[in-house]
């Protein structure tokens, strides 16, 4: 692909077109991504997730502005859902990011989920790499928090921010289960709205329940829980990171400096406490498993004749076969095709 060199040289038009190729899965994309890969691995990827309307785009806008003031270049990938009915999408995150217009140190790209969630994570990972290779130092990935996309973002980002807002779910029960596992930093945005304190307290209560007390006491710092407590007697090299809860008013840039410091502290935790290499290794393993799964499935489906597949479906429907046996049948059919192929090749 003739876009690789210009992208590395900082050509924004080429960058935009390569991102389109990443989304659409162009035929020569694998070669382009392979050529870019040695130039990746420098960016700090920050995932921002949370329910619709909590203020994620507004926060990205405020954070990007603050990081720009500190001289860092910013790439932004804002993901919105594709309509399951039409396949179209309205991508409106730029509305809240107008402060970033006219700054060549920022590049914003809106992406739709386009069908499969697995597809989203592949396209998002590749889009991040393209921005990384193009030299953007910090890459924000905004996704609507819902089940799989939340898991995907953690598997992709180095630092994950979960955004809550008062009124949307300010009870411990209402706050979605699993947030503790994915959040490196918790933000209660719209702190200008009534009920923000309540949301903060609910989140802190959850944190205290969810974290092993033996790792050391939670340390309050300006009313926030920020301290990475040292690992105690066990042999773990990893220091414990306790997600801070930070109040912001994104539209007024309030609390943004504090949030930025918390993000930097998490970054330091990753880099200094020896966490980064093992995390990256995990991410690579998961990505390879994802890609392998997709490739193996595609290969199997391309080799097993469609009528064999159709017959197996009918058998499962008529209760002649159970689903697991059906899968065994399909795998056998695949092995058979492979065997015939290799015998032909040998003769």
């Amino acid at each position, binding site marked *: 692909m003739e876009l690789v060199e210009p992208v590395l040289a900082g050509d924004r038009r080429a960058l935009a077109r390569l991102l389109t*190729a990443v989304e659409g899965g162009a035929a020569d994309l694998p070669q382009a991504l392979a050529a870019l890969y040695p130039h990746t691995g420098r960016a700090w990827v920050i995932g921002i997730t949370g329910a619709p309307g909590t203020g994620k785009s507004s926060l990205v806008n405020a954070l990007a502005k603050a990081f720009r003031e500190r001289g860092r270049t910013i790439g932004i990938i804002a993901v919105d859902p594709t309509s399951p009915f039409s396949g179209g999408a309205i991508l409106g995150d730029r509305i809240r990011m107008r402060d970033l217009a006219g700054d060549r140190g920022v590049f914003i790209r809106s992406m739709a989920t386009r069908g499969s969630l697995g597809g989203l994570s592949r396209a998002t990972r590749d889009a991040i790499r393209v921005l990384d290779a193009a030299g953007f130092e910090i890459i924000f990935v905004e996704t609507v928090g819902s089940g799989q996309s939340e898991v995907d973002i953690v598997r992709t980002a180095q630092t994950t921010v979960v955004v809550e807002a008062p009124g949307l779910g300010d009870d411990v029960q209402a706050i979605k289960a699993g947030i503790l596992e994915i959040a490196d930093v918790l933000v209660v945005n719209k702190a200008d709205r009534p009920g923000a304190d309540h949301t903060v307290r609910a989140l802190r209560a959850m944190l205290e329940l969810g974290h092993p007390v033996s790792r050391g006491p939670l340390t309050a710092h300006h009313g926030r829980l920020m301290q990475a407590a040292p690992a105690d007697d066990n042999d773990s090299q990893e220091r414990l990171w306790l997600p801070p809860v930070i109040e912001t008013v994104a539209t007024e840039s309030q609390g943004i400096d504090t949030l930025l410091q918390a993000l930097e502290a998490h970054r330091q935790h990753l880099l200094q406490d020896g966490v980064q290499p093992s995390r990256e290794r995990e991410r690579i393993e998961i990505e390879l498993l994802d890609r392998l799964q997709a490739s193996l499935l595609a290969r199997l489906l391309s080799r097993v004749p469609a009528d064999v597949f159709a017959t197996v479906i009918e058998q499962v429907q008529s209760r002649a076969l159970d689903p697991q046996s059906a899968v065994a049948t399909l795998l056998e059919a695949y092995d058979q095709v492979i065997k015939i192929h290799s015998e032909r090749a040998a003769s």
Partner: protein
Amino acid sequence: MTDQRTIRVLIAKPGLDGHDRGAKVIARALRDAGMEVIYTGLRQTPEMVAEAALQEDVDVVGLSILSGAHLALVPRIRQLMDENDLRDVPLLVGGIIPDEDVPALRAAGVSGVFGPGTSTEAIIEHIRQVVMNRGGREG
């Protein structure tokens, strides 16, 4: 590009008028026709429109202008898009546009002008047509 490309459209409201109901109706209609619509909100400067068109690599740019400032805004946006290497990206204008201004807009490089009475089907059809005429771009 081997796959059937999803059409990406930028819908922008340049200028100072404060109504975007019409722009939102169009955005929804295009979404329902299977397109990805990047909507940028009110009060966009020509620079913002051209920049968004570049970053989002859209196939078409649609401007909604009710303020009467179209003769000033549209040629400027076309010029900035051309400077951004987006010469091949068609530009559409919708809103309150007097008939006598249409030739000037066309001369400025606008592919379609749509007044208040236009059906959304006509706009969808026009977009599909100009995208097809542009042809499959090299990846």
